């Protein structure tokens, strides 16, 4: 558990235009005979410059919602618009395109390529975006610098600490200048001290004008966000701004 954060002044930046708009989204999983209702009709609007936490107990549908928001998955029913485009009807490669350009993912387990160094890992989204080599290097280097890893760019993941690995993953999420950054339990695999460091980095990203969505079941992590959405059993239980 993270120790309670000392009271501090938090700035809430004015929100921008609508990025994500979902309405009445459901997701069903078929497990043999049984149908699992992971989402039972979720509506949500997310604007640029928001810092949102999605909370809820295990199994409440957080990851399912996050995969949906990240265009990794499409809803069983309901409407989903990303920057005004209908996502629900897109095919695989179109979704890949959106993920590549508009979304930065941060995973609980970091998901770095073990045999590639930090620079190479951060370059990956740029390769898929068709950015030329030279520009790729430069942007990846800058992204690593911005998460405080300027001196680690040629280290492989197994030569880095957990916190440093998550920083590489965050640099990778930033490098394509996405519309939103999605993080699913970003501190789940870190000790509490390192977790705090990562949340400080998120605070920093927010200040630099990024839009963040963090999925967590920890209050101490959610407390960093400016808006908290609570899920329960596939439905939104509450959606309010942080005090």
């Amino acid at each position: 558990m993270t120790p309670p954060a000392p009271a501090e002044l938090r700035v809430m930046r004015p929100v921008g235009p609508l990025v994500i708009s979902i309405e009445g989204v459901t997701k069903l999983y078929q497990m043999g005979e049984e149908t699992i209702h992971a989402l039972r009709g979720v509506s949500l609007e997310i604007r640029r410059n928001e810092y949102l936490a999605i909370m809820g107990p295990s199994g409440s549908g957080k990851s399912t919602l996050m995969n949906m928001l990240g265009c990794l998955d499409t809803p069983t029913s309901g409407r989903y618009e990303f920057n005004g485009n209908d996502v629900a009807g897109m095919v695989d490669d179109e979704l890949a395109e959106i993920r590549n350009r508009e979304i930065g993912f941060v995973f609980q387990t970091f998901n770095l390529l073990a045999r590639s160094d930090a620079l190479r890992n951060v370059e990956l989204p740029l390769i898929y975006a068709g950015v030329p080599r030279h520009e790729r290097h430069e942007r990846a280097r800058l992204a690593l610098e911005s998460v405080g890893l300027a001196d680690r760019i040629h280290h492989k993941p197994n030569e880095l600490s957990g916190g440093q690995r998550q920083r590489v993953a965050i640099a990778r999420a930033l490098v394509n200048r996405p519309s939103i950054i999605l993080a699913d339990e970003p501190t789940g695999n870190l000790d509490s001290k390192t977790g705090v460091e990562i949340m400080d980095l998120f605070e920093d990203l927010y200040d630099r004008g990024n839009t963040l969505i963090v999925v967590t079941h920890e209050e101490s992590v959610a407390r960093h966000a400016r808006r908290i959405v609570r899920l329960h059993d596939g439905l939104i239980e509450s959606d309010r701004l942080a005090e």
Partner: protein
Amino acid sequence: MGRLLYEFNESVRIAMAQIRANKMRSALTALGVVIGIVAVTLMGTAIRGIDIGFEKSLAMLGGDILYVDKWPWLGAEDWWNYVDRPYVKPEDVLKLNRIIDSTENSELEFAVFSAFRATALKANGLSVSGVFTRGTSADYGRVLTADFAEGRLFTDAEDQAARQVCILGSDVAQALFPARSALGATVIVAGQPFEVIGVLARQGSFLGLFSFDNQMVMPLGAFHKYYGVRNDETEIMVKMKDKNRIDQAREELTGDMRRVRGQQPGQRDNFSINGGEAFKEKLDPIKKGIAFAGLFVTGLALFVGAIGIMNITFVSVKERTKEIGTRKALGARRFTILLQFLIEAVSICVLGGVIGLGLTYGLFAGVKAAMPNFPIEFSLLLVVVSMLVSIATGVLSGIIPAWGASRLDPVDALRYE
């Protein structure tokens, strides 16, 4: 366009890293391809060697020379059809040359008569037997394919006068005069002294069967004088004007010979027209046999190899499911993932192909060093073919697992542990 190139480079990098990280596994998997490529290249090496050996041998027989004989050189199983034919005689050649001279735009130049027998000769206190001895005219110089190491052929005048002169093949000269030149020496043939006026350069053997270096040439007059006129070992050599028009030349010669023999329309030819080309047919079944065996082994090895590579690619996809999910989350399209695993499979195959080629080349170099005359030949074409075969094998064996990987659901792939 740029994107495709970057993705391709990335895929090659990953494939190389993957192979490096799993050296043993990759090497074992590539074994089938190695064997396949060794088989296919050895086959190619052998077939090409036979072809080249044949071309060399054909040049000894004279690519532009047709032979008129009583018997066909090959395929006289129905010997009773030939046994009553007359032998070719010196008179045939006189008539034949007259017809050739009077034919306008003839495909043929002239004809030369030869008679042969095996003889023994002595000189220098040494003796050799079984020497292939030819009695012929001075025109023989114009159809002779060998060069003179020293000396010359006899002249027309020497021929007319039936002078006792001779030309020796290199093996014969070497055997009788190991320490010095044979030129000007006297050899005893049929109890008679003959002066050596020429020695032929070394030629080698025809398809390793028949040596051209074990021979002696003398004027026909002298040959007849000491061995008598026996007609059973005679032939006519006819020089063509253009060796690329062999069919036309053969046709004209057939007509000419029928006139010489006074044959009626409807009668079967009472002679055979032979040429080195005839041996080509003899070689075809051998080449076919090698090709069949080679392709069989190649096909089998590549099939087994392909299954191994397909399996290893499935394993690779399974092991890296989470990585596939991550890549998809970062924007990899289906084709990108397909390409990645395809290139991995192809890389293993190409690795096997290169090792196979290396082995074949080593084997080839070893055989060449040990037996310079052994008919095998390495070629660039083999390298190209091997690489293409390797790549094709890689694509065929990698496509199914790579296709599966490309269609994985990103969420499922990311959840995979």
